[in-house]
């Protein structure tokens, strides 16, 4: 896959999704689940299910390393810049296997990692599937000192913490935010309405990705409250149709549906587009190139986004090395390195100065300086399934999202 390697360090899409020509969030999250877990899609696992008990007791101390550590990771998550020093410090040889989608991660982790894998950098929806599938085991957070420095909303988020048990350590996250030209917008737009507005016809760009249906639903949840949209990934047919029809109305206004972050960057650089949906990565690249742009999470609507977690395999063969990795990857220095390398926001709140040291201005462009309130409105991605969180099964599954998206773009 030429595309994949060529774009490795670009934003999240780079690694996984650009190759797949699917923007980031989506790729980060993949698909496939088992029926039993989908019923528990409600945050916090409120569906009444409890995760299977693990036989292995939760570790209370970290012993000597086993010499090996087997990771399943997104491409770009095990870069030599931070893997090499880890190997030297701990003597744990890191073997990383890159997965292309969440479904691949889930199947690799089946049967507790098969006694082969130790950790997986799971995202969004995959987390709950792994927890309820009994493939991961609780982590003792007192053995991960830097966890206390994490942003509070990522210390015990519903997608990786059940009944106070932590099934993983949050890693990095990011919003799908609104990118705009500061020449056209004197102040930051407060609503996504600008990307549906005839005023900017021919100057709008959005990702070429079905996930945009969730973004449209997010806007409609405020603009048309009568639709009753409460979860943008669990849409009933009428809600889904409303989002699709909004996107069809938007189509004549679109300059291009972008596939690669670099496409959007060149669109904004040439002034072909003035407003669009983006990742913080593009903003940073454009600002570094001197383009007059900024990005925002529109305060009226919020945004969609993604979040990743390192999870410990139930049958991890090298738990001590795994704990050493969890402690290491959570430290401000390594969090900053990965954030800048990949173009995402670190879970550790104490990274701003370190990020700027690596790349000037990266703290601001990746929003690592923002207060928690700024991120409060992010709806973290999960795979749409027919089963809704409310116990009904009349939601539109992702396969139909893809079909509808082809109908929209033509």
């Amino acid at each position, binding site marked *: 896959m030429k595309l994949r390697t060529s774009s490795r360090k670009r934003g999240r899409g780079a690694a996984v999704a650009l190759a797949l020509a699917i923007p980031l969030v989506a790729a980060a999250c993949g698909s496939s689940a088992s029926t039993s877990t989908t019923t528990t899609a409600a945050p916090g696992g409120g569906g009444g299910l409890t995760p299977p008990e693990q036989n292995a007791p939760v570790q209370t101390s970290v012993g000597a390393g086993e010499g090996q550590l087997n990771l399943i990771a997104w491409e770009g998550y095990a870069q030599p810049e931070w893997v090499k020093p880890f190997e030297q410090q701990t003597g744990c040889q890191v073997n990383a296997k890159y997965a292309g989608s969440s479904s691949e991660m889930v199947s690799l982790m089946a049967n507790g990692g098969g006694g082969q894998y130790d950790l997986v950098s799971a995202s969004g929806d995959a987390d709950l599937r792994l927890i309820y599938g009994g493939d991961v085991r609780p982590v003792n957070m007192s053995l991960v000192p830097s966890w206390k420095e994490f942003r509070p909303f990522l210390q015990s988020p519903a997608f990786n913490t059940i009944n106070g048990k932590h099934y993983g350590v949050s890693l990095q996250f990011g919003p799908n935010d609104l990118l705009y030209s500061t020449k056209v917008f004197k102040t930051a737009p407060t609503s996504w309405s600008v990307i549906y507005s005839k005023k900017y016809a021919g100057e709008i760009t959005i990702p070429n990705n079905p996930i945009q249906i969730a973004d449209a639903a997010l806007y409609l949840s405020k603009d048309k409250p009568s639709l009753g949209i409460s979860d943008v990934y669990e849409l009933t047919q009428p809600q889904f149709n409303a989002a699709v029809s909004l996107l069809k109305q938007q189509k004549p206004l679109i300059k291009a549906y972008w596939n690669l972050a670099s496409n959007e960057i060149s669109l904004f650089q040439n002034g072909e587009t003035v407003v669009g949906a983006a990742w913080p990565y593009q903003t940073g690249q454009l600002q570094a190139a001197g383009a007059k742009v900024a990005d925002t999470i529109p305060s009226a609507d919020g945004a969609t986004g993604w979040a990743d977690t390192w999870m410990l395999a139930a049958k991890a063969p090298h738990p001590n090395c795994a704990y050493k990795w969890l402690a290491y990857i959570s430290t401000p220095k390594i969090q900053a390195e990965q954030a800048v390398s990949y173009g995402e926001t670190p879970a550790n709140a104490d990274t701003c100065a370190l990020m700027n040291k690596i790349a000037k201005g990266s703290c601001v462009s990746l929003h690592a300086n923002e207060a928690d309130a700024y991120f409060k409105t992010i709806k973290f991605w999960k795979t749409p*399934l027919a089963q809704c969180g409310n116990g009904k099964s009349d939601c539109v599954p992702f396969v139909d999202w893809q079909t509808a998206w082809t109908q929209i773009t*033509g």
Partner: protein
Amino acid sequence: MTLVAAPEGRSKKRVARTSAALWRRPWLRATLTLSPPLAWFLVIYLASLIVMLVTAFWTVNPFTNNLQHGLSLANFRALFHAPIPTIIGRTVLMAALVTVADIIIAVPFAYFMARVASPRARNALFVAVLLPLWASYLARVYAWIVILTKDGTLDWATQHLGLGSPNIGYTNTAMWLVFTYIWLPFMIIPVYGALERIPDSFIEASADLGARNVRTLRSVLLPLALPGIVAGSIFTFSLTLGDFITPELIGSGSNTNMIGNVIYDNIGLANNLPFAAALAVVPIVIMTLYLLAARALGAFEAM
């Protein structure tokens, strides 16, 4: 010693008998020689095609997003739902237009290479034709983004010539230009091969019989070059039909979908392998028809 010699002699006899049997039966010899590559072809090539065709009858479970084995025609029916027919039509039209453009460029070019240029110039032209193939496909597509984008190289050139600014980045026209460029070597080489094989005496004979250049071109050169052109068109047509990178990078995404990238989009996150497989049958059918037509034109006899 006799104890040892006996089996040795017997085995020698057996070898002799085997080779005699093979000599008497050429078909057996051919079968044994060809069976390893044939087995490889059957297992690797045909088996994967068959697996793909079988997948086309499966469905995706809406509750788990997992594949459901079964025998459903839903995916084939979905091929007739808007906008898939439009996308198929667009892809075939694009492949045809790219092929025509490549023929128009390649025939005079190959003629010059084969019959006019000095051996030295011919070598230089060969290198020029093949050199782009050594560079990454992606790098070349990116170069075209730079050329075609607003205020890019093309706009800059036309503005300086006073022709205004075409600004054709992210359109079907841009895709057509890029495809024509990318697949051009695959047309030039077979056409060159066909033209190069025409003996000089044919052209002299045509002149001796009173034919002027245009008549010689029409009645001698083009008919003899046709198999090369058809062979080249098989390449350009099928490569355009299946490509997904150029539509994703050069197309705007708005009314620029092609078969290749729709298949690709359905495989990734949607995990809709069954529909992707059903859609993949379309180019196979189109190429089969195309190859049958090419055979009728006698393209394979000259290849």
